[in-house]
């Protein structure tokens, strides 16, 4: 991330110096401003879902979800930490339900738990699953199309579902294959 950030930042800055140097500071400020606005939006989403998730946690619901998904999380993520399993289970459930905003805090908690056992494999796997998007219902897009007077706003449902599955399955498989190769080379 550091390398990518440095490369894009420096190359873009040099470009900007040639095109319109006066836009340099305003761009940075407007970037920070969008971050501030974005964090307000994010806070609203997180307030709703983390409040709810706290109740789910205290009532034992999340532990139940974790138990249901335990065989999967044990086999795929190779973790025995119940707190990590619980957060992974909640993260995956939120993703599947299409409430992506709610999924992020769980993923971050799960990653912090996995950090304790130095389970870098599971951390990266969880990142790949989330970053390849496993949404069942693309609510934003459907709302956008309905707003633009689409005759059938929902007709992208099936292709979206297929594509989101393709990207997640490809990502997980590639990752598993690469880690196998690496482990094989290490032995």
């Amino acid at each position: 991330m550091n390398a990518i950030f440095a490369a894009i930042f420096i190359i873009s800055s040099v470009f900007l110096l040639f095109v319109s140097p006066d836009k340099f500071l305003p761009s940075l400020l407007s970037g920070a401003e969008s971050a501030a606005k974005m964090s307000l939006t994010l806070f609203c989403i997180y307030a709703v879902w983390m409040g709810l998730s706290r109740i789910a946690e205290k009532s034992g619901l999340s532990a139940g979800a974790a138990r249901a998904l335990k065989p999967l999380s044990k086999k795929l993520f190779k973790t025995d930490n119940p707190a990590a399993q619980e957060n992974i289970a909640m993260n995956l459930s939120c993703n599947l339900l299409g409430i992506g905003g709610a999924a992020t805090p769980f993923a971050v908690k799960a990653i912090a738990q996995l950090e304790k056992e130095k389970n870098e494999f599971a951390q990266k796997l969880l990142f790949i699953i989330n970053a390849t998007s496993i949404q069942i219902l693309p609510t934003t897009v459907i709302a956008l199309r309905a707003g633009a007077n689409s005759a059938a706003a929902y007709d992208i449902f099936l292709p979206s579902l297929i594509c989101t599955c393709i990207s997640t399955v490809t990502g997980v498989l590639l990752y598993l294959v690469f880690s196998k190769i690496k482990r094989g080379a290490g032995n």
Partner: protein
Amino acid sequence: MVYIIPAIFLFVFIFGAIKKVKLYSEFSAGIQEAVKFTFSLLPCLAAIFMMCELFEVSGFSDIITKALSPVFSALGIPAELTKLVLIKPFSGSGSLAYLNKIIQQYGADSYISRCACVCFGSSETVFYISAVYFASTSVKNLAKPIVIVLISTLISTVFACLLCRIM
């Protein structure tokens, strides 16, 4: 579909009440966590958004878009979508604005718009997610997972353009 979210809330709240959870205190305690969490994200967000803004304003993104257009066309991705596919990993709001523009320009039910919607709906803001997820960890060497995600997203994009032709 509109009933899913209220149903989840009602289910969790009623279940919590049965289990004698103090709903108000715990709900606020959860929001307290949300406050801390949002603040912990702000530094990453600000840095990434500044980078994205520079990337866009400097015209660097346009140059890359032009350079990659032929490659994307060869893979069956329409030239109109190149920019959307490239921006999406960097910026959710930026690509959403661009998606909106495509829908307005070509009409919601055109092939280009449907394709754009599927690509948008089945991909994520990879760089933002990687920054947020790994902010508080010692994990290094994220290049490999990021490349894997980008490759997978590209493959699903190719399929999206194909599927929208036949479905």
